[in-house]
C-alpha cells in the first residue's frame, strides 16, 4: 500500500517539476508598462494571440497602485517606486481593458490581442 502511494507521490512530483520547468523555461515575451502620474504608458499594449506574456509593470509614482482587470482576471498591488511582474495570457483575439484600482479615473489602459 505505502509503496503504491510512494510511487504515485514520486510521479506527481516529477509531473509538477516538468510543468514548472515548462512554464518558466519557455521564452516568454516581456512587455513593459509604466505608471506615471496615475497614468499608464503606453495606454495600449499589443500582444500576439495565444501567447503567454510577462508584463513588467514599473510604478514611477510614489503612491501605490493596483493593476486590475476583470477581463484578464488579474489583480496586483504595485507599491510606490517599485516594479513587479504579472503574467497574462495566452489569450484569444480581442480587447481587454485594465485600470488602476486606486486611481481608476485616470489610470486606464487596454491590452489588444492581435493575431
Amino acid at each position, binding site marked *: 500500500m505505502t509503496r503504491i502511494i510512494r510511487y504515485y507521490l514520486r510521479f506527481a512530483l516529477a509531473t509538477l517539476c516538468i*510543468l*514548472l520547468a*515548462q*512554464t*518558466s523555461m519557455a521564452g*516568454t515575451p516581456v512587455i513593459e508598462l509604466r505608471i506615471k502620474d496615475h497614468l499608464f504608458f503606453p495606454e495600449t499594449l499589443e500582444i500576439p494571440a495565444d501567447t*503567454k506574456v*510577462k508584463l513588467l509593470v514599473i510604478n514611477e509614482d*510614489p*503612491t*501605490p*497602485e*493596483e493593476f486590475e482587470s*476583470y*477581463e484578464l*482576471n*488579474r489583480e*496586483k*498591488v*504595485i*507599491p*510606490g517606486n*517599485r*516594479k*513587479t*511582474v*504579472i*503574467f497574462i*495570457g*495566452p489569450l484569444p483575439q480581442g480587447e481587454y481593458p485594465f485600470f488602476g*484600482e*486606486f*486611481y*481608476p*479615473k485616470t489610470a486606464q489602459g487596454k491590452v489588444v490581442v492581435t493575431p
Partner: protein
Amino acid sequence: MFLNSVVLILQEILEAALLVSVLMVFSRLDERRPYWLLTALSAGFAGSLLLSLNMANVSEWFDYVGQEVVNASMQYAITLLLALFAFSMSGDRSPGRQRLVTICMVASVAFSLTRESAEVFIYIEGVLSQPSHLQPTLTGAGIGAGIGISVGILLYYSLFWLPRCWITSCCLLLLALIAGNMSSQATLLLTQADWLPPTAILWDSGHWLPENSIPGHLLYALVGYEATPSVLQGVAYAAGIILVALMGWLGSRQRHLKRQPLLADRKED
C-alpha cells in the same frame, strides 16, 4: 475616488464578514463566548499591518511574485483550516477537539483579515498623501464598510431563522463555498505568478452578469463569482467544497461510531 473606495472596501469587508458571521453562528450554537473573535481580529489587524508595511519587499520575493505566493498560501491555509474546522466541530466534544475548533476559527479569520485589510491599508496610505481625495475616499470607505457589516449582521441573524436542524448544515455549506472560493482565488494567483500553468476558460458570463457591476461585486465577494474562470480554478473551487464537505462528514461519522459502543455499554448495565 468615492465609488472606487466603496467597491474596494465593500469587497474586502464582505469577504471577511461572511466568514465571521458563519463562524459566529457556530460559536453561538456551541455556547462559546465570543472572545475568540477579539483574538482573531487583533491578530488579523496586526498581521495586515505587518504585511502592508512590508509589501514593497514582499512583492519582490520569488522573482517579483512574492505577493501572489504569500496571498495564495494564506488562502490555501484558510481552505485547510475550514476543512479542519468542519471535521473537529462535527466530532465529539472532548477538550482537545474544542481547542482545535478555537484554533481553526481564530487562525482562519486572522488570515482572512490579514489578506483583506492589507490591501485596504495600502490603499488608504496612498490616499492620505493626497488630501484632495481624502473626503470622497473616506465617505466611500464608510459607505462600503456600512454595507459590508450590515450584510454580515443580517446574515448572522437570518441563519437563526432557519429551522434548528438546518442551521448547522447551512453553515457548513457556506463554509464549503468560502473554502472553494479561497482555493479558486489562490489558484488564480498562482497562475498569475506563473507557478501554475494557464488553462482554458471554463465559461464566459460577462455579458449576462459583468463582474464590474454591483451584483457582480457582491457575488464575487460572497461566492467568488468570476465571469471568465479558468478550468484549473473550477477544479480548485470544487476541490475546496468537496474537502470541507468530506471532512464534515468524516467528523460526524466518527462521532456516531464513538457513540454506538457507549449505547451498547449502557444496555449491558
